């Protein structure tokens, strides 16, 4: 569409004529200016008060908001723009501003409800709190005593957006022995490449640091829509001369801002990343010293077993956790400890070449640096080979590699689009390799960051989340949806008697969970489903008992987010609407009814006391909340005690402290076990990696291709996040629906649409072997032929038919994700985008 934006008027005419007439004929001059009427009002209508709180759907924003209260009701919500660090002003989005419509809107749940019809029928009667609490306490006790308390699953979504109210879930689970679900892995956000490579849950640069970059490579990340409060940092970088390259199968709004858009075939990012790595090496623009110093590249791997050579192999009585490199200077093996990165002065560990090493038992073994295996894999990924897989032109790959390597610092930002795949871990590992090869790790403006989910626990939550010394049993929720797998890690405390109850809170589980039809099989076997929410969601509709929760404008909580390291309060601006109550209050009442003694021990604490306990627990020197007081928080956001800018691995890189840094809230040893070398690991020696041929970063075709062969299921179904919602939250917002139209659209490329006789606006069926939905087609050039996009988060009632997009998605578990187990840190991460389907015009209803 060739519009000259200066000439948008379809019926423009001579400017001179109009202006001229005004000048020539005095009568045509506008009447003289006057003042003092109507809108010349001196000031706004007054309010009772303005309350500072924090917006916290399941969004990484956690933007400070001001609630303007008049006559006891909220009359406006506006971003607070009060961050002490000016770089974080502004901060907000249109959704947060429109939350007032959920506080008072048509879907607000105002009283406790008890189901009267069939499950899912949405028929309820209003009940008193006493009645529902007695009922829940009774049912939980019966289930607990019959099947075991651990057969009750508490699903409470990401805790970072509410340490206190969501923490109450953990505390209750710990108190009563319930199984607490996971969120970060369940959400598919856990970038498994991170624990595998760096031994951390995830580690991203704070958003402000984007502005310090000279080159921004965005892969499967759409910050223009999904990081609205932070996206201005990209523009700040661009204004300083940085380049923006976006890798996305669709022409996303972020791609619209890019200097180059690489239209990649879905699920093939790893191939692209490997080709970039190979090119950087081929061009000689890689940083061998960095690889030697910080990564496992020089550590020798035994040719016979594929396991690393250890000191114990070389000398009798040697340590099993000390590794071996080949010193080119001495021409001899060099034992490498894990206390410190780097190598003794004067040594020069080899990065290639196989050597024959004499072992303690007198035998000898061929061993080569891990990096040799990496290079062997990379050698396959010529630009042409990558083009064949990814569809990105070979010369473009070369140019991106050169521009990326030339820019210092250069940042890689990976998002859900690349991570939400069965093999998303491989993509992460390959991109981490690219960042390491160019020495971009631990440097401001550089790095490899995965921006997914609101997950990070940034404070010491132990005094509130744990019941004394007892922690909640954590079971990955994917096992709740699909039952246990054969390859499940033995440490997972999966309940012996399966599942018998569910408490779902802060989540729209039956819409947002994968493989929803399978989930319903689990649900059918449950004795009790409790849903806590303030919106009458599809999930609430399936509940036996619905508890009305307060919103973040009606209660007290403490939040922090991965992208901007500020601790913030939620403070009630208004009285709870209707009969709604906070989650902490609900749990206290339930526990009191089940076991008054335990309630007395663990639940006679209010929000403020819990916050103070958390602040105190992290207040030690160097602790996350050192020096932060409740008083300060009441006045506004306070920066956590983290370096500024918050750049992961800086200490490792600058001070040679071994990897990994700690991932709160688990103790360091737990995650350190993921990388026994204490280095960035690009070679994984654990048996399952070897069995599956994934010791080094490699590429695997999308997993769902094996379930739905592309020949029969020609379209990839991409379900990214919508700008208009946070998942399913805001989907029912009337203001936003006025803009986007309020019904699910499936974006389809013109050739795919033409082949099926589909036009924009047609109702279409989207189906695979797991389910089927009917939505409306939108034929658009933004979509790549071979894939369709249906944004996640639409409510089932907004579809023409079906339970929502997650009828189609897969709950397949990658056994690599089960090699270790720490909930939310090394656990099965969902492949939302790893899904194939077929599309056809729907018959008229």
């Amino acid at each position, binding site marked *: 569409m060739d519009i000259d934006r200066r000439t*948008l008027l379809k019926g423009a005419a001579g400017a001179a004529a109009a202006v001229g007439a005004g000048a020539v004929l005095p009568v045509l001059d506008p009447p003289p200016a006057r003042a003092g009427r109507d809108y010349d009002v001196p000031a706004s209508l007054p309010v009772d008060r303005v309350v500072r709180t924090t917006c916290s759907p399941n969004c990484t924003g956690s933007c400070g908001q001001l609630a303007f209260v008049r006559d006891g009701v909220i009359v406006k919500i506006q971003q607070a723009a009060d961050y002490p660090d000016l770089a974080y002003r502004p901060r907000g989005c249109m959704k947060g501003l429109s939350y007032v419509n959920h506080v008072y809107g048509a879907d607000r749940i105002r009283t406790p409800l008890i189901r009267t019809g069939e499950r899912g029928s949405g028929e309820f009667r209003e009940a008193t709190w006493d009645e529902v609490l007695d009922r829940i306490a009774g049912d939980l006790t019966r289930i607990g005593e019959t099947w075991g308390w651990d057969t009750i699953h508490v699903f409470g979504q990401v805790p970072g957006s509410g340490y206190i109210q969501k923490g109450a879930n953990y505390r209750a689970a710990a108190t009563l022995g319930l199984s607490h679900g996971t969120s970060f892995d369940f959400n598919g956000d856990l970038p498994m490449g991170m624990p595998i490579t760096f031994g951390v849950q995830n580690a991203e640069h704070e958003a402000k640091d984007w502005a310090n970059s000279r080159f921004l490579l965005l892969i499967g990340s759409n910050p223009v829509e999904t990081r609205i409060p932070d996206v201005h940092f990209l523009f700040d970088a661009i204004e300083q001369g940085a380049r923006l390259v976006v890798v996305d199968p669709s022409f996303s709004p972020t791609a619209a801002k890019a200097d180059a858009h690489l239209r990649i075939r879905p699920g093939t990012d790893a191939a692209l990343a490997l080709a970039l790595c190979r090119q950087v090496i081929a061009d000689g623009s890689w940083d061998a010293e960095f690889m030697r110093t910080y990564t496992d590249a020089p550590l020798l791997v035994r040719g016979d077993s594929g396991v690393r050579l250890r000191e114990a192999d070389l000398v009798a009585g040697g340590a099993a956790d000390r590794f071996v490199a080949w010193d080119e200077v001495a021409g001899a093996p060099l034992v490498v400890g894990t206390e410190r990165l780097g190598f003794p002065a004067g040594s020069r560990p080899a990065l290639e070449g196989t050597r024959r090493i004499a072992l303690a038992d007198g035998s000898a073994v061929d061993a080569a640096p891990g990096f040799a295996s990496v290079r062997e894999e990379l050698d396959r990924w010529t630009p042409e080979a990558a083009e064949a897989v990814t569809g990105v032109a070979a010369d473009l790959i070369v140019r991106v590699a050169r521009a990326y390597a030339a820019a210092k610092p250069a940042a890689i930002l990976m998002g859900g689009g690349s991570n939400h795949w069965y093999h998303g871990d491989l993509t992460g590992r390959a991109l981490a390799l690219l960042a390491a090869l160019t020495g971009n790790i631990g440097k401001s403006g550089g790095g490899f960051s995965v921006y997914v989910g609101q997950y990070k626990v940034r404070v010491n939550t132990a005094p509130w989340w744990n019941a004394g010394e007892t922690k909640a049993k954590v079971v990955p929720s994917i096992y709740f949806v699909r039952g246990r797998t054969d390859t499940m890690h033995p440490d997972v405390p999966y309940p012996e008697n399966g599942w018998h109850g569910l408490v779902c809170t802060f989540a729209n589980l039956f819409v947002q969970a994968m493989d929803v039809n399978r989930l319903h099989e689990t649900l059918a076997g449950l004795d009790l489903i409790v849903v806590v929410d303030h919106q009458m969601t599809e999930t609430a509709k399936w509940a036996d008992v619905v508890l009305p929760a307060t919103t973040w404008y009606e209660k007290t909580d403490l939040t922090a987010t991965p992208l901007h390291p500020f601790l913030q309060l939620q403070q009630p601006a208004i009285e709870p609407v209707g009969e709604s109550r906070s989650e902490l209050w609900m749990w206290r009442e339930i526990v009191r009814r089940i076991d008054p003694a335990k309630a007395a021990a663990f639940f006679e604490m209010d929000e403020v006391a819990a916050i103070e306990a958390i602040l105190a627990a992290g207040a030690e020197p160097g602790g996350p909340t050192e020096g932060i007081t409740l008083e300060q928080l009441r006045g506004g956001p306070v920066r956590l005690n983290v370096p500024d800018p918050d750049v992961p691995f800086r200490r490792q890189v600058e001070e040679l402290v071994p990897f990994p840094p700690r991932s709160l809230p688990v103790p360091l040893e737990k995650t350190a076990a993921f990388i026994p070398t204490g280095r960035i690991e690009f070679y994984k020696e654990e048996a399952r990696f070897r069995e599956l041929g994934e010791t080094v970063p490699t590429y695997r075709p999308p997993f769902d291709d094996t379930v739905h062969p592309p020949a029969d299921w020609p379209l990839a179904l991409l379900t990214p996040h919508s700008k208009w919602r946070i998942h399913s939250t805001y989907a029912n917002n009337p203001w936003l629906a006025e803009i986007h139209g309020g019904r699910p659209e499936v974006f389809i490329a013109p050739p795919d649409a033409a082949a099926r006789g589909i036009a924009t606006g047609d109702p279409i069926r989207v189906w695979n072997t797991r389910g089927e939905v009917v939505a409306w087609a939108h034929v658009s050039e933004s979509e790549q032929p071979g894939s369709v996009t249906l944004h996640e988060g639409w409510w089932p009632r907004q579809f023409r038919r079906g339970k929502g997009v997650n009828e189609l998605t897969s709950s397949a578990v990658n056994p690599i994700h089960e090699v270790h187990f720490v909930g939310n840190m090394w656990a099965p991460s969902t492949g939302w985008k790893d899904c194939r389907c077929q599309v056809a015009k729907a018959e008229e209803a």
Partner: protein
Amino acid sequence: MSATTMPAAPAAAPVPGRRALALWIGLLLILIAAGVAAFAYQFATGLVVTGMRNTVMWGNYILFFMFFVGLSAGGLIVASAGRLFGVKAFKPITRLAVLEATIAVVLAATFILPDLGRPERLLNIFLFFNPTSPMIWDITIVIVYMGLSAFYVWLYARADLARRGSWLALGTGTSERTLAREERLKSAMAWVALPAAILLHSITAWIFGLQISRGFWYSSIMAPMFITSALVSGMGLVILLALVLRRLGRLRFEDDLVAMLGGLLGTFIAVEAFLVFAEYLTASYPGAPEGAAVARMLVGPYAPLFWFEVGVGLGLPFVVLAIHRLRRDPRAVAAASGVAILGIFVHRLNLVLNGLSYANIQLPPGLPVGVDQGAGTSFATSYWYVPTAVEWLIVAGILAFGALLFTIAVRVLPMQEPEAH
């Protein structure tokens, strides 16, 4: 071609019985009552009960306003031009034309009321008169013109009323001197009325034509086009009404007059068609953006209306009136007049619809419609305006009001201009 002269007038016109008249007036009163009720409802609820929205913010009311201003101007131009240029043959229909003009302008003024969001604030127009607004001048001229034409009607009827001794003569007499003075006054009035009528409709045209925001309207040809279309519709209506009155025995004239008026009407139609063509050619030839509006008019969703205007509204009556034999058949001329009037109505409709149906800035999602749409977007780049029942009821009520005025007027006022003079 047959040279047969038609009989002068139907020998014995069936004078409608009291019963028929009562029925007719009863029907009109019912329609008026319905219109008033609809207006009251609209006043209480807001214009949300109309089919108009932010996108198409003017609809039926303005359309009928324009249309009736045109009818009025056309009628008065015919009457006063006849007098000014001494076209004696027009004489038998002069009174009718003036009466038609008067009632039409009253209706036009009435149509403004329901169009206003705050009709009760109408007086603000006089309190806060804004001289740069074409609308203010239009309303001014409508008011002036209303007085003028009413006086004109009276002037023509006065002598006869005086002769009948009616109070409506307002105490004036029929002396030779008075009559002579009256003749001079009539001539003078024609000099005033003709420009007034032209001004009336030109200003109405300028309400539209001066708006640079609406490329479809922004054209200097707008006023001439409005004048010709006024002539077409005004002449058409005068012909129709004259024929009706002749049937009802309230007016006498020869068929020759019909043929002559028909010929004139045909000429007006030709000029109108020429202007329409010239306008749209100019708009579309450069391939500039406003051409898009013309293109939409020619082939877009409203295209049938345009082709109706061209084919039925202009083409058909022109052909009928161009054929000498048909022109001499009053029924043919009546039919041609009828479709020509309809054609002009559709012409105005096209002007409003095509000028407003597409947002100026054609970028998605468009402009806010203005009311809650339930689920679904509240924006549109184009809008399909369909008048609601409320709008039609109000229109019907005002039309009935006009018909009632006319019915009363033709009963009260002597319509026949004395032969001798």
